[in-house]
């Protein structure tokens, strides 16, 4: 099986403290892979190293067999990784459609063009992407006035603009109402299926994880402690202890009290 993304021994230390320690995994084509773990486990640090926002202390990231470690984010993006952010990052002074047009202009390498008007460039393509995420009716609204869930959908449209092979989504549903969450993840799943691309996402909402991920990895204190199917990870004792709410510990104490 040829992996889209392969991560080997990825490590990050901040002043001697290991935030991410020797993490290895791979992402297969058309796979939805969830990376979960408690706050501070190193998930976002991991993402930042994959995309090049942070330099890795050690280890390698390979996209289609090519080493992309150490590349700045813009180059990683050009090689086919799109990303959405935990805290949304959009261009507040532009309209919704212009946000997508901006990504398309970058994709077509027309950033230094000073002849034509930007608001006409790749308009139809941008509208198609907005339609894909269900934002076409809001295309002319200012980004600054959008609802949070809509911003998240817009970010997804931006991340899809260069037809990526892999989507990195950092907490795609954080701050959304439960109904919106399911909608957004269903949309992502459809896109993954239809375009045969892969998605790696972090998530705190276990409903989202267990209903949409094909595979789940668990990060704890920078180390990968589990990597497998939803069922395997759910029943893993160590995972339950560190993350999934200490159900076993609870029982233990409860029994202890009765004794």
């Amino acid at each position: 099986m040829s992996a889209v993304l392969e991560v080997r021994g990825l490590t990050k230390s901040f002043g001697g403290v290991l935030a991410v320690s020797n993490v290895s995994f791979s992402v297969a084509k058309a796979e939805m892979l969830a990376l979960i773990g408690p706050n501070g486990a190193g998930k976002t640090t991991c993402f930042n190293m994959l995309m090049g926002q942070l330099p890795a202390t050690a280890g390698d990231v390979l996209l289609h067999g090519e080493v992309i470690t150490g590349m700045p984010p813009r180059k990683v993006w050009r090689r086919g990784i799109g990303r959405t952010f935990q805290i949304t990052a959009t261009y507040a002074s532009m309209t919704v459609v212009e946000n997508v047009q901006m990504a398309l202009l970058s994709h077509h390498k027309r950033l230094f063009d000073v002849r034509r008007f930007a608001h006409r460039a790749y308009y139809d393509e941008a509208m198609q992407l907005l339609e894909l995420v269900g934002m076409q009716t809001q295309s002319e609204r200012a980004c600054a006035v959008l609802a949070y869930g809509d911003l998240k959908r817009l970010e997804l449209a931006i991340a899809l603009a260069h037809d990526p092979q892999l989507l990195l989504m950092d907490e795609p549903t954080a701050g959304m109402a439960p109904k919106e969450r399911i909608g957004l993840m269903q949309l992502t799943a459809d896109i993954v299926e239809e375009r045969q691309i892969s998605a790696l996402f972090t998530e705190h909402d276990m409903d989202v994880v267990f209903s949409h991920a094909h595979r789940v990895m668990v990060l704890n204190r920078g180390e990968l402690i589990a990597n497998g199917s939803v069922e395997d990870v759910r029943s893993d004792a160590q995972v339950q202890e560190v993350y999934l709410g200490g159900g076993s510990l609870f029982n233990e104490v409860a029994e202890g009290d009765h004794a």
Partner: protein
Amino acid sequence: MGLFIAQLLTGLANAAALFLVASGLSLIFGVTRIVNFAHGSFYMLGAFIGYSLMQVLPGAIGFWSSILLAGLAVGAIGVIVELLVLRPVYRAPELFQLVATFGVILVIQDLALMIWGAEDVLGPRAPGLKGIVRIMGEPVPQFDLALIAITPFVLFGLWYLISRTRVGILVRAATQDREMVGALGVNQSWLFTGVFFLGAALAGLGGAIQLPKGGADLLMDFNILASIFVVVVIGGMGSLPGAYIAAVLISVLNVFGVAYIPQSTLVLMFVVMAVVLTVRPYGLLGREEVAGEHGQVGEPEKPIKPAGNLARGLVALLLVLLACLPFVAEPFFTILATDVIVFCLFAASLHFLLGLGGMVSFGHAAYFGGGAYVAALLVNYASAPMELAFLMAPIGAGLLAVIIGWLCLRLSGVYFAMLTLALAQLVWSLVFQWDEFTGGDDGLVDIWPAEYLSDTTAYFYFTMVVGIGGILLLRHMAHTPFGYALRASRDSARQAEATGIHTKRIQWVAFTIAGVFAGLAGALFVFSKGSVFPVELEIAKSFDGLIVVFLGGVKTLSGGVVGAASLTVLQDFITRFEYWRLALGLVIIAVVIVAPRGIVGSIRAIAEQRFSRGEVER
């Protein structure tokens, strides 16, 4: 050897005042995150107040208590400024605070003029310390030795205050995490006021203590500003020991510079700074500032669209009316209109950088004056024809912007702003001190346009075509992919970088473009006036540009132009009054507090409230 020691001592003595003023600026910045441009004004007030007190209080006791009282008085003035001007804008974007402190500068300048008059004041010599001491045969003023002896005590006193007292502990804690200090029950507002008192008092002390050496005059506020910025930037923002080391370094270098390379004393300071910052971008003892996502100044601006037909028609009509001006009005108005267009182009280039790019440059005059000087030098030395000189001006200014932009864009936020200012001062000092080449203070004269443009009316039309053409071109660029990429880099560098945009490169190019157009304005300027002087490169010129963009409205495409036109006309009108700075300063402060959206922004906000129009600006 004796001379060497004597010069070293002079340098150390000069460091005293510089350290006092710079440490005050550093303290204020550390806690409040405000770069207090009015700090030079506090220094000037300290000198004048100290002088007046010394006239009244006799003897050595009178002399030294005058210095202390001057410090306290300036501290109290600092408190008034903090309460009235800065408190309302603590939560505003940093540009607003800077503009507000600039308003304070203007007000204090005129108040000082009213009270002490325009004459320079010679400081009295210190009673009991009027003589000299011979050290290894070289004369050293006793007062210098006193200053050298006093400074360590001041440093120790400050150090004790900051590191050993509760107030100092709170100040240091607040420098690191203001919000947490508040959550522990400390009233930040009063802490800020206290720090402002202390910082202003130190500046006042610095001003008073240098009286026997330098006296007092109305230019000392701007004159020291660049030096203290350099000291604070070299030492590291917020670091007292850093400020001391840098003050000594700069002062000693300066004295040796005067002795051995007298033509480059001012330049030397900036060269040292450039070297230090290349090695340590955050200064000797400074700490890296993690810039947040704060590219936009204030609330996000509205999406923009190219002007509709109505707007285009209106602009065309306005241009036709403008073109008729020479036929209907006196020549004076034609000249004024030329000035207005030149300044509008300058402001539009700064607005391009600041408004669209989110890069707050405090040294934009470097490219305006730079362009003007390139043209003037070519005419003067190479007898270049006007057309060639005119063409080379924007190119020269652009090259300057390429270099300065590269250096400055390694930093962000306040550091970026201060570095642009310091490097612009470097250009100014080069021009100012290189007498034999640039004419120094006497400037370059006899720079007239070609024969066919020598008529006022002809040159007015030439300015109209080039100037307004430049403005329209800049405006057009805002709507092109490049303009969008520039706004994208400002709105969210994170998203831009993650979608393939090399934000620093975009910003660098934009910085250069802004330099080119400022240089073009400079070229128009020099041929309209026939001469150029270092004043066109001064901080005050850069600030004029900033204020104009701010008054017009940062958030609006036409803000720069509208602001520039209003200010030039307003200035022409109010400079006929003696105390016009006072009025202008008060207007600026009022705008910052009352109408922070600027002229165009406020009009639009009112119009939108009335008609509650859509979200898209046209």
